[in-house]
């Protein structure tokens, strides 16, 4: 089980989601991807995308307007 951080700070929607999609493809089942974002649109976009693909998702607000989307690759 590995944990990968993906720095998307300062990137506007939909770049964080596209980056997350690419990174997820490289990971193995059971790995965690932590996407760091500060664009409020991506805060909805990234978790929605991951949930619809059946992954476990948790969103953590680490600062004012700064979030970490923690995605566990399930399949």
């Amino acid at each position, binding site marked *: 089980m590995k944990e990968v951080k993906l720095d998307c700070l300062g990137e506007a929607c*939909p770049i964080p989601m596209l980056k997350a999609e690419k990174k997820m493809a490289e990971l193995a089942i059971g790995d965690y991807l932590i996407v760091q974002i500060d664009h409020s649109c991506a805060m909805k976009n990234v978790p929605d995308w991951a949930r619809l693909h059946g992954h476990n998702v948790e969103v953590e607000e*680490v600062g004012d307007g700064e979030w970490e989307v923690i995605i566990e690759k399930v399949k």
Partner: protein
Amino acid sequence: MTEKTKRKPKSSQLPFALALVIALVVFGNWLFGINPTLAIALAFGIAFGYVLQRSRFCFTAAFRDPWLTGSTSLARAVVVAIALATVGFTLIKYKAFLGEQTIPGMHSVGAIGIPLVLGGIMFGVGMVIAGGCASGTLMRVGEGFQMQIISLFFFMVGSLWGVHDLPFWNTLNTNAPKIFLPDVFGWGLAFVIQMLALFAVYLIAYYWQKKRMGEVE
């Protein structure tokens, strides 16, 4: 579970919020003295901004995600919003029509011509690159997203440029039709047709997501 980044310590924002509310009330009062419409516009602007920010409603995503990911949840939300607005606008306009007053908002019935198509394509490309449409950009500038301050600047430059070239664009619209549905079908039928069209778009969006993602929330 994974190791989480420590939450940065937060200072209370309550004093700022209070100061802002007081400042807005004072500012609103001042505007009301000059022109009551300005104060009403301010109130609606603040309410709209609040709803937009809290709901994370994004018109750009509504038109982009169906192609990018296949998700149409925001696209369907926009359809519902237009349907609700249709009810309200029809009532307001129909009431003005019955009272033989000038129907409000008729200057928004624009020509359907080449400039509309070109403008739509240009705006669509621009908003996806800039990461937000007009309202979304304004809202995220308020949130402090720096890149979109640049978007806002060029949004204003582009608007001015557009106004400058407007006489040229209008020459392309001389033969383009302006269609107001109630003029064509009558008020009742126009309302029904618009609602049916929106319902059809909603269904298409629903099955689009089902086909592309295999799941609809």
